[in-house]
Structures are given as structure tokens and as C-alpha cells.
């Protein structure tokens, strides 16, 4: 019962955030001073042409009607049409989605693979030099802007060692080896920077476990500190880490957009930045809306996954 309530509350938060964010996006693009038709056509356009485009895009209707029309289309998967090319935003998004998804997915996994062992070590050895070194390295890593990390990686691995291509992208279906070679640097860059942020949370979660009675029990029956932490800490710490991970989704996505720009990857980030430079407002609006929707869905899914980890929640579900 309690669980059903939690799920409903979380879905409610999801719905409110979605509607709220869509209103915000719509208000920024339509209601602020700066006419959409004028922006699309540029400063030199004649008033007649602007008026005609306004009628075409339905910009002469009341704002509320325009918003409902637009948001209704978004809910059915229609994110608008590019004014410049006449292509549907969805048809621009889909071919680029794979690049961003690889980058975000691998980086999420990579950052966890780095941050969990490092955070555990930092917690376990928090009073000796190993722990201090890990924490200090994380502190340094947090200060490095992700694009500078990418540039430094290019300097070392592409310019100096010539191991990896400096930029560009090859689809997986075309040449898997080349695909991997082009993705390694972007993924590692984003993973490392993201891991630096995550380590503090992982460390805090495991320090909490170290202070728990069940950890002491595990030690008292003969587990070594590391094995006790793996056996009993990982699952318990992951309950609090899942929440953090949900919050990290949007920062990984933002990082991916920046990293795409560093390595010249043809993903959603490059679509957005091109659209911004061309002032293709409707593509920007549609793509941003799509990204917001994706972040909200993923965060909700991540949040729900802790129901699977925590038996106290699972039991509540079984009892229902």
C-alpha cells in the first residue's frame, strides 16, 4: 500500500516536471520578447513575409492554444518541423540518437566502474594515506572541465602517441573496430570526470555502511573488511546511491553534449549547436523537449529500480 503510494507520488512528480518544463521551454521560445517568425527569417525579412510565416506556423493564435497544440503533438511523438530544411525534428533526431546513447550509456557504466571501487577504498582507508589520495584525486578531477579533459586526452593519445583518432565517428554497423576507436576517448573522458563527482557520494554511502552494526556483525563472524563491505555493503550502499545516480542522469547528458563538441561526434549535441547557430528555433525547441523527456524518464526508471534492491520495499509489494 505504502509502495503504491510511493510509485504514484513519483509518477506525479514526473508528470508535473514534464508539464512544467514544457511550459518553461514554450515560454522561452514563444512568449519572451523576440518574435519566432522574425527570428526564423532574420532581420532583413519584410513585414509581409513575417506576417505570412506567422500565419503559417499558427503564431497568430492565442498562446495557450499554441502551447496545447504543441504539447499535444509532443505527447504523440511529434517534436515539430525544422523551418530551414522542412524535415521533421524526429527525423533529424533519430539518426543522431545512437551516438549520444552510446556515449551516455558507456559513460554511466564507466563512471560507476571507476567510482565504486575508488569510493570503497576511500571509505575503507579513510584514515590512512590511500583514502586521502583517492579523495584528493577526486577533488582535483571535479575541478577539471570535461572539455579540457577531452582536449588533454586528444593531446596525449592523438597528437603525441597517435594511438587514437582525434575526432569523428564511424557507425557500429560500418566498422566495429573503428567505431570503438572513435568512442574510447570521449567515453573515458566523460567517465573520469563524472566518476570524480560520484566518488564523494560512494565514499559517504560506504562510510555509512562501515558505521552500521551489521557490518560489525559481519566482521565478528570472520569476514575481512573488504569482503564484508562487498558482501553486505554493496547492496545497502546502492540503495542510497541509486538516488544519486538518478540525479546524475542529466549531468551525464549535459557532459555528453559538450564532449560531442570536443570530439566532433555527430550526436544530439551537434544537432542542437548547429540549430542554435542557424537560429532554427523549432528544431532547438523540439530537441530540448526531447532531451528533457528522456532525462525525466530515465531518472524515474532509475528511481524505481531501488524498489528492486531494497527488500523492505519488495516485501511491501509482495504483501499488497
Amino acid at each position, binding site marked *: 500500500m505504502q509502495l503504491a503510494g510511493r510509485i504514484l507520488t513519483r509518477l506525479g*512528480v514526473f508528470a*508535473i*516536471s514534464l508539464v512544467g518544463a514544457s511550459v518553461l521551454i514554450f515560454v*522561452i521560445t514563444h512568449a519572451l520578447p523576440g518574435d519566432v517568425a522574425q527570428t526564423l527569417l532574420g532581420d532583413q525579412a519584410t513585414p509581409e513575409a513575417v506576417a505570412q510565416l506567422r500565419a503559417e506556423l499558427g503564431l497568430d493564435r492565442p498562446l495557450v492554444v499554441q502551447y496545447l497544440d504543441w504539447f499535444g503533438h509532443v505527447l504523440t511523438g511529434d517534436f515539430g518541423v525544422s523551418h530551414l530544411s522542412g524535415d521533421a525534428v524526429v527525423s533529424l533526431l533519430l539518426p543522431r540518437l545512437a551516438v549520444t546513447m552510446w556515449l551516455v550509456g558507456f559513460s554511466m557504466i564507466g563512471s560507476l566502474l571507476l567510482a565504486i571501487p575508488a569510493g570503497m577504498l576511500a571509505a575503507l582507508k579513510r584514515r590512512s594515506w590511500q583514502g586521502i589520495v583517492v579523495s584528493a584525486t577526486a*577533488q582535483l578531477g571535479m575541478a577539471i572541465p570535461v572539455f579540457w579533459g577531452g582536449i588533454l586526452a586528444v593531446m596525449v593519445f592523438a597528437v603525441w602517441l597517435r594511438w587514437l583518432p582525434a575526432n569523428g565517428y564511424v557507425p557500429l554497423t560500418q566498422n566495429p573496430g573503428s567505431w570503438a576507436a572513435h568512442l574510447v576517448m570521449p567515453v573515458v573522458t566523460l567517465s573520469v570526470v563524472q566518476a570524480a563527482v560520484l566518488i564523494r557520494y560512494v565514499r559517504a554511502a560506504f562510510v555509512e555502511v562501515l558505521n552500521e552494526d551489521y557490518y560489525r556483525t559481519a566482521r565478528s563472524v570472520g569476514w575481512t573488511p573488504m569482503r564484508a563491505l562487498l558482501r553486505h555493503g554493496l547492496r545497502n550502499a546502492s540503495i542510497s546511491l541509486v538516488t544519486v545516480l538518478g540525479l546524475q542522469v*542529466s549531468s551525464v547528458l549535459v557532459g555528453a553534449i559538450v564532449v560531442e563538441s570536443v570530439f566532433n561526434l555527430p550526436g544530439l549535441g551537434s544537432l542542437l549547436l548547429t*540549430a542554435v547557430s542557424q537560429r532554427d528555433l523549432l528544431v532547438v525547441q523540439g530537441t530540448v523537449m526531447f532531451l528533457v523527456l528522456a532525462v525525466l524518464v530515465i531518472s524515474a526508471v532509475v528511481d524505481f529500480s531501488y524498489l528492486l534492491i531494497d527488500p523492505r520495499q519488495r516485501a511491501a509489494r509482495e504483501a499488497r
Partner: protein
Amino acid sequence: MKRAQLIAGVVLVGVVVLATVVSLFWMPFDPLRVVPGQRLLPPGPVHWLGTDGFGIDIFSRLLLGARSVLLVGIISVGLAAVVGIPLGMLAGQAGGWIDDVVMRLSDVVYALPALLLAILLASVFGASTVTAMVSIGVATIPAFARVARAGTLQVMAADYVLAARASGTSWWGVAWRHVAPNIAPVLGVQASVGFAMAILAEAALSYLGLATPRPNPTWGNMLRDAQDYIFVAPLQAVWPGLAIAMAVLGFNLLGDGLRDYLDPRLREVP
């Protein structure tokens, strides 16, 4: 150890402030004037850090860039604090539906990170320092609101506040006399950490061409320009990055150090 953190933070932040102040009075070369004959010079006694692809002294551009770091940081953190703190205090003190509304609003803003806000604003108004400051500031509001709210809830549960309210102290009286002084330290920490985040965000935005446009230098757009010469003059891509990392590290250390200094109970909180 903890003390060392605070001192290192103060020193690093001090360097950024000092660079800004110095840039107001003195810069070795004009940071905006293109000198075609002096392109891509290596570091030397004249141009300490060398020159960029336009023949401009990199050290002078770094000094000028420090200004925009402080400016964007102060304005965006200020905006977030001015809007977020009262909202958070209101939510924490009033509770009920007001609390719900404020928290849901912060969820909404949370769904739109600074980068996406900046992209929207830049496509409507054109990229500028102002669009960057506004988008970073707005995106930082929820952080301040949440910290202020959590602190307020804690203070409101204390017996002395219950006593003050029972004896008829007004809402404003409680907020001003009891809540504000108690949550000020945590907000100071948040401001410092928020400043670090703002510097990172501003650097990313200007790197992507979504903030201060050229020819005005920012550490971010200097890195974008340096990337074009990465095969011929790789050192160019080191200095601005070091400057950003130093400033961010400084504000993070300052925040952490303040946290430990002000309240040892907060030590294990990330």
C-alpha cells in the same frame, strides 16, 4: 588537514580575485588587438605564455578572462541566492501546499539544466554573457532553495523557535532572528560550491559558443580557439584549462573548508 583545505581555497580564490583587480589597471598587452606578425609565439620573456592564433598575448587574455569568471559567478550565484533562499525559507516555514509548490517548481527547473536553458536562450536572443548568467543562475536556484529549506526545517523544529512562536513572535521575526542566522553558514558553503559550479558551467557554455562572444576572451572560448592549433601549439590549450581548474578547485576547497570549519557535524556529508 581541514585547515589546510580552507587556506588552499582562500589562496586559489585570492589568485583569481587578484588577477581580476590587476586586469583593471594593467595588462602587458592589449588583449583584443590582432597582431598578424606575432602569431603562435611560444612562451618567452616578452609574451610570458606565448601568443594565440591572432597574435594576441595569452597572459593578457587570461587576466581579462578572470574578470568574466568573477562577473558571471557573482551575478548567477547572486540571482540563484536572491530567488532561491527566500523561496526555500518560505517553503520550510510555511509547509503544506506552499512547500509542495516550491518543491515541484524546483523539480521543473531541475529538469532543465543550465546548458539546455542556455541553448534555448541563445537561440532566441543570440548568445551573450547575459544569457549565460541567466541560465546558470536560474538552474542554480533549486540548489539554494533546497539547502535553505532543509536548514529552515531543522531550525523550526528546535525548542527555542517553538517558544518564540508560542510567545507570539511574528513570521518575519522568526525568519529574521532565528532562521536566517542559523542557516547562513550552510548557505555560505552552498554559495562557494555554487560558484565553482558556475565557473565550470560558464567555461562549458563559452567553449560551446553559448556565452560571451568573441573577440572578448573567456577561459572557455580561449580553449575553443586553442583546439584549432592543437597540432602546432598544444601549450595554448593548457593555460586556460589550468586557470579554470585552479579557480574551480579554489572555490570547492573554500566551500569544503568552510563546511568543516563552521560545523564539524557536517563533515561526512558529501
